């Protein structure tokens, strides 16, 4: 139970406070390119979660006998291998999704977030902690993909998961599924996320001050 308590903060920071897309602004290419429908976004999110978690575990296991000088090539090869596995699995069992994601699936290899987590976290921590970190970052990424793709699908085609959700006469705003809509939406989402985090920090500061006052009196 203590172990879980220790792992929870490592996991949960990826969801919001250090969300890879909204806060760190890393790995944006896929977030914009494949989020035209929720299904595509979700597939991409799960693939990245799988890759980042497995890679973190692999890196943290081999970290003690990899010479620091060649660590980046080693990490890249490890990531590329895991991505190839994911590619083959998707191609075999979900050919439609494989086609829809196209080249962006292969490009998971060069997502900055995966290499960054390996370098910043997994190369300094044990397998269990690295697993929690990778899984948290992956979930945060998936969450961001879900939010972006849901907004784009509802406004851009008037559907959610392929089912019409808006009233019958709704005229889809085509721009949202085209590239410009994605850029503009991300801009506003980043701003919203920043405001939310700033507000939370302010509240935390106020609470701290009140506690200090309470302690004095």
């Amino acid at each position, binding site marked *: 139970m203590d172990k879980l308590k220790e792992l929870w903060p490592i996991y949960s920071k990826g969801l919001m406070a250090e969300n890879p897309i909204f806060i760190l602004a890393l790995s*944006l290419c896929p977030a914009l390119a494949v989020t035209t429908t929720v299904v595509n976004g979700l597939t991409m999110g799960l693939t990245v979660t799988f890759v980042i978690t497995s890679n973190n575990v692999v890196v943290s296991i081999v970290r003690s006998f990899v010479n620091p000088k060649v660590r980046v090539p080693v990490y890249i090869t490890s990531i590329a291998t895991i991505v190839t596995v994911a590619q083959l699995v998707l191609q075999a069992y979900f050919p439609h999704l494989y086609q829809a994601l196209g080249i962006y699936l292969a490009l998971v290899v060069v997502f900055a977030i995966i290499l960054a987590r390996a370098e910043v976290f997994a190369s300094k921590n044990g397998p269990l902690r690295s697993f929690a970190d990778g899984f948290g970052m992956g979930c945060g990424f998936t969450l961001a993909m879900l939010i972006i793709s849901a907004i784009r699908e509802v406004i851009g085609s008037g559907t959610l998961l392929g089912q019409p959700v808006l009233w019958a006469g709704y005229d889809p705003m085509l721009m949202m599924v085209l590239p410009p809509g994605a850029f*503009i939406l991300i801009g506003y989402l980043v701003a919203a996320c920043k405001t939310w985090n700033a507000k939370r920090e302010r509240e935390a500061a106020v609470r701290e001050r009140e506690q200090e006052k309470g302690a004095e009196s």
Partner: protein
Amino acid sequence: MAEYLTLFIGAVIINNFVLTKFLGLCIFFGISKNLSASVGMGMAVTSVMTMSSILAWIVYFFVLEPLGVTFLTTIVFVVLTASFVQLLELVIKKQAPALYNMWGIYLLLIATNCIVLAVPLLNVESNYSLLKSIVFAIGSGLGFAVAIILMASLREKLVYADVPKPLQGIGIAFILAGMLSLAFLGFSGML
């Protein structure tokens, strides 16, 4: 000839890699704060992309395909482009220190970048001939250069604008990129 021209113009403006395919966004937003750095980055990306496309094409059609191991394409291309860029950096550092001072830092940034990996992958996926691959790579590189230079000139003007606080920094950059992308959509009916 017309075929190559179509491919070239298509790669530069109509299917602009940054603004319609979202590739290379990390460097696009990272570097475009500064105009002269953007010019350097555009040139570095174009030359690296062309050379790594040629290399990847040769490896794919003379090694991977005859051996029947095309499922290894992703791994091989990543290692190939990353090591090629590192090698190039060493050579330039030794042979042309002046050039290295100008561009060296950008080379490190593009060692593992989606745009440098995507072009060789797209080349072999669409079964382009060697000459077509080269034309496509140069076109894509110039398209990236055009986008990043435009963006940098716009962002320099932003310094004088009164941007709402939450949008400052990356937020307004995204919206600006959206506007640029909207403008580039206008080219889509051209060919």
